[in-house]
């Protein structure tokens, strides 16, 4: 492990609440350990701001191990920052250099209103899942887990899609503000598995229409979502969603 430390200039988006206009503010940080995570660097800043009687920067975070999907910000123009397949909480300061200026702003999208500073409202993603991102099975009465054999390769493909953490980086990075990687991942997971097949048509129609209703855009194959996805979700899932949707629309 390194014990290097660096000095940084930060440009952070500050916005009091949804109604107020935001602005970038500049902050200086000295002697930041390269072993710190990005959020720990923000903790250090917030402790400093608090001691100076200033308002600390509000940001969402929870598990700090890259799985809950709560954290996220656009760092130097890239959602979750420069490291591939890394959430903001797992980004470490060793990837920055002494004297760097880091610009930090919230995930911006029409469907994600800003609540304060770096905190946005991503409840639109929940509503897409509520539209059909499930298999309609009540508790109890499920057949034995081994009753339906599922080829290992299929289970793995479904797992690749199911790994989505719902952070919304795909939306923030898409020039169209599309949530198609997010929606495609759930539709893929459930349509690949035999358990999800009975409802595949209704699911595709309902989830795509919920996506449109929430104000998300559509995919024009920019692949920005795939590039920033902290879980490496492939845009093949968007293709699979499109196939599911087309099949459902024509043959529904």
């Amino acid at each position, binding site marked *: *492990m390194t014990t290097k430390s660096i000095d940084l200039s930060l440009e952070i988006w500050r916005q009091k*609440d949804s109604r107020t206009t935001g602005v970038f503010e500049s902050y200086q940080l000295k002697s930041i350990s390269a*072993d*710190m*995570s990005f*959020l*720990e660097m923000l903790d*250090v800043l917030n*402790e400093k701001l*608090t*001691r*100076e*009687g200033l*308002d*600390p920067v509000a940001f969402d*975070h*929870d*598990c*700090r*191990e890259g*799985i*809950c*999907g*709560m954290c996220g910000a656009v760092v130097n123009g890239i959602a979750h920052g420069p*490291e591939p397949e890394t959430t903001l909480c*797992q980004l*470490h300061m*060793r990837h920055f250099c002494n004297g760097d200026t880091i610009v930090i702003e919230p995930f911006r999208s029409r469907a994600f209103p800003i*609540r304060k500073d770096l*905190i946005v*409202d991503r*409840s639109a993603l*929940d509503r897409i899942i*509520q*539209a059909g*991102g*499930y298999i*309609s*099975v*009540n*508790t109890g009465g*499920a*057949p034995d*887990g*081994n009753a*339906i*054999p*599922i*080829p*290992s390769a299929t*289970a793995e493909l*479904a*797992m690749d899609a*199911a*790994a989505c*953490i*719902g952070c919304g980086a795909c939306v923030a990075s898409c020039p169209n503000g599309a949530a198609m990687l997010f929606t495609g991942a759930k539709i893929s997971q459930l349509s690949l*598995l035999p*358990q*999800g097949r009975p409802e595949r048509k209704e699911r595709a129609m309902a989830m795509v229409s919920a996506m449109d209703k929430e104000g998300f855009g559509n995919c024009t194959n920019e692949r920005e979502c795939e590039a920033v996805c902290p879980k490496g979700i492939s845009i093949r899932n968007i293709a699979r969603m499109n196939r599911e949707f087309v099949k459902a629309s024509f043959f529904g």
Partner: protein
Amino acid sequence: MQLKSNVPEGPLAEKWDKHRFSTKLVNPANRRKYKVIVVGTGLAGASAAATLAEQGYEVSSFCIQDSPRRAHSIAAQGGINAAKNYQNDGDSIQRLFYDTIKGGDFRSREANVYRLAQVSNNIIDQCVAQGVPFAREYGGTLANRSFGGAQVSRTFYARGQTGQQLLFGAYSALSRQIKSGKVTMHTRQEMMELVLVDGQARGIVTRDIISGEIASYSADAVILATGGYGNAYFLSTNAMASNVTAAWRAHRMGAGFANPSFVQIHPTCIPVHGSYQSKLTLMSESLRNDGRVWVPKKPGDTRKPGSIPEEERDYYLENKYPSFGNLVPRDVASRNAKEQCDAGKGVGSTQLAVYLDFAEAIRRDGEATILKKYGNLFQMYEKITDSNPLHEPMMIYPAVHYTMGGLWVDYNLMTTIPGLFAIGECNFSDHGANRLGASALMQGLADGYFIIANCIADYFGSTNPDKVSSTLPQFVDARKKCQDRIQKLLRGSKNGPQGKLTVDDIHKELGILLWDHCGMARNKEGLEKALAKLPALQEKFWKDVYIPGKGKELNQSLERAGRLADFLEFAEIIIRDALAREESCGCHLREESQTEENEAKRDDVNYSHVSVWEYQGDGQEPVLHKEELTFENVTPSQRSYK
């Protein structure tokens, strides 16, 4: 305080069936008349809310995060146990029951643990039906792996993200019920108070995290699924928002708190590396299937691991516990790591770490196989430490992870307050003094999917509660209590931060106090010292803490301060509980009570009980009650993993 376990009569294997037959039911058409509040949306909370709504109850679900999908169950990596015996290696409900009760060092209730083992198989079926992509064999059947404390392969998994996938299953079931209108979802709400009417739990008070508004909600029963309190130690593997507030507020209203000192310290975490550190990251126990734990034989050996020849390495777990080897239970593995480091054999810059080495497994199975099993864990490790476990051994050290203690519940998962239920990690019921790996997910889902709905029906069927509204004075008072408390927290901050401390300054101090005196090894002297230091720390908090901002706005410092205020009060019963239990058991090692081989030495004559604490008021000493544990089906033995 009456501690009636309400364990049904009859042979162990028939208790749950008999109980379900003898308890009251609510007719499907009448269920819509009952409102249930579920606080928390982890495995237990989400599965309970979904299941109750499916059955027809009106459910209000609350979570602290922006979405129910983010609860900390999501971070569980390794797997979930079930007694399916798909591997034909001798597993059975009886064996899962025995392993769990033995793993807990015979400090849990037989009937609860047996029921857990019984419903474990239904959980797997349910999750498969929901579309959880469990790992499969090439023939298409479900795959299993081994976990600590068991000699059979009974753990089901979805790569290193089992908790995530199970949570998404429960979240999808919950989402379906939100869509149907049977569940009203309240996100970004923190429970601040429990409301009692005529001694029954009838509602909660919440603070909206975005607006700071205080609101109250009424219901016919309240279920707490608010997880564990590991963050009392500041550094733990818990998520940042995990806290004791909901459980502690319920405790202050009369809910007994059981075994608060039973805190699991997980052996395989990434070691601490700086004072700025905000949390510790767990590396799944499943890594111990293929990783070998070792330290240099010579104390103070600072050579790189690759330069230390085989004969100069001490694979201490394999040597000391030949039959379980690296897969001994968590408490045993943690204590041994501490022992090695205390003897000066720790590695890394702080010398508070041991190696977990995959070199032999890679030679045996190849890199591809190892990466298929643990790829995401290796990646996570490398991101944090900048070191690749394929090329050099991991460095690991124990960290606070899970709390076996929690609100006391009877067989019906009801606390000592009628109408208040506690499920998942929030209760104390199934893991005794030590939880086995892959059993937390099992318990959360067992409680939520398969147990709580029966308990709720029985409660409604037998008490038929009157309707209440949140305009009752009890609700008004509770809201006021909450507002006053927020004002009290902010009171000292009017004149700015000069000469003041931040919330984290004090939380770190509390963490060190607990870790040093109430961590992996405890003794009377240290515990008494910690207990004596606590009031000054509490006073310092209320006098010197500076909280910026206001109550009626998004204020993350205020949120943390409120949680810390409760941790500071709660810490007293952690310490008192450890002090009162003058034996060693599971996670709780009292240095005064050890075998000749330095293993935990139980004292079944004097301590075969659950310790339950009753709140007596601010500044009053809490009262200890005991629920005696009787073992009719197993004989408590000195655990041996040799």
